[in-house]
């Protein structure tokens, strides 16, 4: 429970953070809300030698809507998503999912950019961004680039970000279609054992903790598009997936849960 020693740098701007990352290479980690990184450091599962604190970049805390696109600054806190009137209007799935992350102290510190960059397959918001077909804007030494959420999650705690890139913005299309998020866990503050995010009446469906990354349930989306019932579409929710086994659930039970909660989420999102 005692982290290894590390150096600490405070970024004055996103550009400054990127230059510090370029300087320190893969020994450096960005520190935003810290509610994933610090526990991992305390367990010594992560031992960065330099922390670059981006937590004071308040210019990256915003939620805007323009021409049907919602843009969210990377340092926007979960609690800000949760309580945003704009988001409740134009991307209610994100607001609703944000309200279920961890506990109040996590939600007041944790950031949207941080949880995406962390790429934990058991986290809620990455799956929601995936279901919404979002876009992640990464800033590096050469400027900004856009990465589709479907291309962003590369592996277990791995993203498409280069060592010297940071997320500055997340964009999702304003969405008014039926949506729902089902989170199954033991305690309110825990990660999902299985989660299911549904956007646009089943046009976007993604699963939490059903593989090494948040996964898009393409077979379910296709079934819904072909007019399948919620029950029939949910039956293929776990198809082709290799979910993890842990103390809460082995892989078979997880597949079962994925089917149960996909059906519930689809129904709640308006799929008959």
């Amino acid at each position, binding site marked *: 429970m*005692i982290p290894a020693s590390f150096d600490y740098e405070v970024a004055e701007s996103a550009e400054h953070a990127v230059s510090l990352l370029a300087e320190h290479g893969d020994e450096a980690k960005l520190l935003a809300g810290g509610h994933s990184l610090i526990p991992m450091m305390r367990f010594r599962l992560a031992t960065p030698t330099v922390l670059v604190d981006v937590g004071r970049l308040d210019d990256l805390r915003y939620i805007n809507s323009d021409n049907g696109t919602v843009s969210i600054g990377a340092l926007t806190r979960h609690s800000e998503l949760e309580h945003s009137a704009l988001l409740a209007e134009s991307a209610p799935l994100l607001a609703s999912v944000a309200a279920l992350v961890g*506990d109040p102290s996590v939600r007041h510190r944790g950031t949207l950019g941080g949880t995406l960059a962390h790429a934990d397959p058991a986290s809620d918001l990455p799956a929601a961004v995936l279901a919404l077909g979002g876009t992640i804007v990464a800033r590096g030494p050469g400027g900004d680039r856009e990465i589709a959420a479907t291309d962003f999650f590369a592996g277990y705690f791995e993203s498409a970000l280069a060592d010297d890139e940071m997320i500055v913005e997340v964009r999702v299309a304003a969405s008014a279609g039926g949506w729902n998020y089902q989170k199954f866990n033991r*305690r309110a503050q*825990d990660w999902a054992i299985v989660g299911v995010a549904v956007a646009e009446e089943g046009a976007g469906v993604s699963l939490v903790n059903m593989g090494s990354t948040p996964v898009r349930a393409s077979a379910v989306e296709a079934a819904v598009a072909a007019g399948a019932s919620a029950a029939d579409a949910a039956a293929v929710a776990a198809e082709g997936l290799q979910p993890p086994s842990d103390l809460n659930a082995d892989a078979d039970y997880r597949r079962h849960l994925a089917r149960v909660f996909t059906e519930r989420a689809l129904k709640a999102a308006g799929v008959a």
Partner: protein
Amino acid sequence: MTMTDDPATHMGSHRLRREDPALLTGEAQFIDDMSLHGEIWVGIVRSTEAHATILGVDGSAALEIDGVTEVLSGADLAPLWGEGALPCAWPVTDDMRNPAHLPVATSIAKYVGDAVAVVLADSRYAAADGAAAVSVDYDPLPAVVDIEAAVAEGAPLVHEDLGTNESYTWPLIPDPDAVDEAFANAAVVVGERYVQQRLIPAPMEPRGVIAAPGVANGELTLYSATQIPHILKVMTAVTLGIPEHKIRVVAPSVGGGFGCKLNVYAEEILCCALAMDRGVPVRWTESRSEAATATIQGRGQVQHIELAADANGKVQAVRVKLLADMGAYLQLVTPGVPLLGGFLYHGCYDIAHYSFECTSVFTNKTPTDAYRGAGRPEATYAIERAMDSLAVAVGVTPEEIRSRNFIAADAFPYESCAGLIFDSGDYQAVLDKAVEMADLQSVRAEQARRRADGSNRQIGVGFSSYVEMCGLAPSRVLASLNYGAGGWEAATVRVLPTAKVQVITGSTPHGQGHETSWSMIVADKLGIDPDDIEVLHSDTAISPTGLDTYGSRSLSVGGTAVFMATDKVLDKARLIAAHQLEANEDDLEYVDGAFQVKGTPTAAVPFAAIAFAAFTAHDLPDGMEPNLEAHVTYDPPNFTFPNGTHIAVVEVDTDTGNVDIVDYVAVDDCGNQVNPMIVEGQVHGGVLQGAAQALYEDAVYNEDGQIVTVNLGDYLVPSAAEAPIYRVASHVTPSPTNPMGVKGIGEAGTIAATPAVINAVVDALRPTGVTDVTMPASPQTVWRAINEAQGGAS
């Protein structure tokens, strides 16, 4: 004495706790908040093997870390304690096997977490880095993990030299023939096997120790996050050979214990030995992950219970065979824990014949010891689960089977088949109240509707009627159980010159609110404001005599001592008042904080005047000593027997196996209540802790003896968000055992809740064919139970 919400008295009122402002603002000082000049930190290298020969300890890499000063193996440290092993104070049988338990293992590591080497460093960080850098060469030995496998023929041995994994067998069978006859003649026999999983106590504050030597005079001050500074003082003296009068033990603010701080731990003895040897303060703070293996665990039993009943479900005999997991060593009261339940397997029922036998077994796991309820939750679980099975077998409701078997209200004092004298109670009235509060008719109607609909949200109702033995304990009874100490408690009430009062208690609060409750007791008796009373405790220099806090004993034993010491102060005050009034003491009465001649308020001496007179000693009765102070040591004549009925209503999602507690009713009889707010708090926390065993918590070991639940992400302590909405009530039958008529409430909720919740889960699943669910009833476990009962794939 009144015990109501009468504003004229404090007892019986919901007075806010005086402890809380300091706790809530962070002002309270816990061990880890302290700092002593020149202190050094201990980091402990813990075995990563469940059972292994230690071939070597290599500290060279650790010594290169900045701040690490020494790396010491168990062999290096052995001269510090010589033969002095960690104490077990409860040798329950004369032939109990008790292997020598050194603070740091020298040759064989016996469980994951067993201390095998020590790092000394100038900071906590360096100590942690150093401990991580020490390399230990192990030669693994076969590990004994499962207790039923441990007693099988040819099982590997935890302690090779003992020749067996059994520590002791303890029978309580007053009339074996009568038991056999009852079973032979029974119309209905129910036989069940239950597993009590191991639990990790997980108080908010892990343990911590600072040992500070007084080099000039050979003194030692031990600061420890402990429930038992008094017992720890004696045991440290005995274990390390330090003269007892040179040792002072201080428990600062202690963040909960639940029994796990009722012990004498390796780290306490280690820090003391090093401090005396090196002449500097030596300290250690436990991390949360460390606590999963370095602090004792609770429960860990396999229970076989049989009931012999007539055709109406009236139980004639109960027969219990218990296997109890001791872990690798016997800690302070490890072997006694099953015995505390061993008298109560007949529950609150009038059962004529009793047979209990416990075999206790060593395993390559962390030692077990007292954990909230200690033996009594296990006993209550077994009898309450079995009573529900009997109800099904006889074809009556759970409440009816209980009513047919309750000890009758007019049977008290009641001599139980296990040989205890139950003090008071009205078990049927308690159950009736709980049934009424739970609105059972509506709940059962809804249950029937959902069963008929084949709903995927099934409702279940679970009962738990419990009785516990508290107020530990009459010293002579402890003697008969081979316990190594008495069960009395001490108190001093000291009136200061300005009529402020100090109460010095031998009880050691670590969250219970004794400062508030004790001040209320004394305030009512003296007719003064509770805020004019200071309650001092938990420092053997201030409170030299005591036996500390555990087993729901503080109010009924320690509080009674305070009550009686206050009476003695009043007796002396009366003599002073009589002298000043030139009246006969028998003609005086104490009204509103003043002695007056009966019926003559104009001739009165207020308490403040008596206090000052006692201090100046200018005009006291001939031969009277100055000052107003009394000391009482109270040895209870009997246990107290709190009891109650709890009803849990759960909803089970049969698609996922998830269990929600949708209603929880608790009706408890803890006798008279000093502060009902504190009573409710104990019930709330206790119920959640009991429900946690039912649904969430499990110290999981794999077959190699590796523990896999070492942090609070994997070990599921429920939070406030998981707590049910409690509906709490009481039914008071004052205990005749002590003058306040109190019984104790510290463990009741934990004892009652576990079987109430599991009985409810089983009741909900009855349409699926499930008759038992193992604990914790996690969603996956419940889902599999449903699948298996329905013959489907698991």
